[in-house]
């Protein structure tokens, strides 16, 4: 199975979920800022938008990816299903997981500040926002893991 965690820019929420899935981040407590910032690829805006980024294989040899889908998750999911059909490939090999909706605007503001070169302030805002919403990421990953059982 190929599990693709999706969020708007592919480097924050989706990377966090991939990290929890791969046990790079804890699921029984909120990850520290240091743990989050040390995730490979976290906040790396150099990753080209739309690239399906391989992160690693889980315990059951499922391949875990992240993907930036802007605000068009449903569109991307439909298009991928239809694209695979064109080649008679089963869409069952893929699970696309949408990032939970985070009510805080700080993750967006932090991302913009990061883009503008204010890396430290930007990252701080993003990480704080992620930590505040961490349980919702864990919940989502647990739902995915439950589906895989």
């Amino acid at each position, binding site marked *: 199975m*190929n599990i693709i965690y999706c969020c708007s820019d592919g480097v924050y929420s989706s990377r966090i979920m991939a990290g929890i899935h791969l046990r790079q981040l804890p699921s029984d407590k909120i990850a520290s800022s240091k743990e989050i910032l040390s995730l490979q690829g976290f906040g790396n805006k150099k990753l*080209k*938008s*739309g*690239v*399906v980024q391989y992160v690693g294989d889980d315990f059951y040899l499922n*391949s875990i*990816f992240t*993907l*930036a*889908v*802007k605000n*068009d998750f*449903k*569109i*991307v*999911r*439909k*298009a*991928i299903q*239809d*694209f*695979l059909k*064109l*080649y008679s*490939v089963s869409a069952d*090999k*893929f699970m696309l997981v949408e990032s939970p909706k985070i009510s805080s605007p700080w993750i967006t503001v932090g991302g913009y500040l990061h883009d503008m070169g204010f890396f430290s302030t930007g990252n701080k805002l993003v990480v704080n926002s992620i930590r505040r919403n961490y349980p919702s990421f864990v919940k989502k990953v647990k739902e995915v893991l439950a589906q895989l059982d």
Partner: protein
Amino acid sequence: MKVIYHCYGGAHSSVTAAAIHLGYLPENRTPSAKEIMQVPLYDKHTDSDHGKIFLFGIDEHNNEIYVVGCRSLGDTFDSILRGIGDIAGIDHSDTILVNTLSAVNWKMRIGGYLSRRLGIIALGRPIVLSGTRSNYQKFVKMVNSVKNHLYNKSVQGGK
């Protein structure tokens, strides 16, 4: 080969390009608004159709021609599908994705928005039709470029 023309809503520019490709619309002149409206799917798709890849027809060289609306994904759409194709082990070298938004003018944007998004068809449709006719030669040029690419590929494949 598979050619996927994609634009924002899959209702105007991608449909126009696909229709020219398949000969539903002429290459040597600008068609009337009535002729354009007779093209299947023109100004028909709604939000719920976005992301669905529609088979529009098969050209004289047996190439499959598709249209799809992918909102603001643009060239990112190409990258996503190719990435998924790679993971699935698909040889997608026979697929050409064509972003038709470069031929879209402000009339098509405004008319399309009014007609498809807001549902004000009586106001939006004449505007989008006028925009399509204004930029028609751009679509013809785009399609000819795709056809040349297909021809070159088939020549290379035949060697």
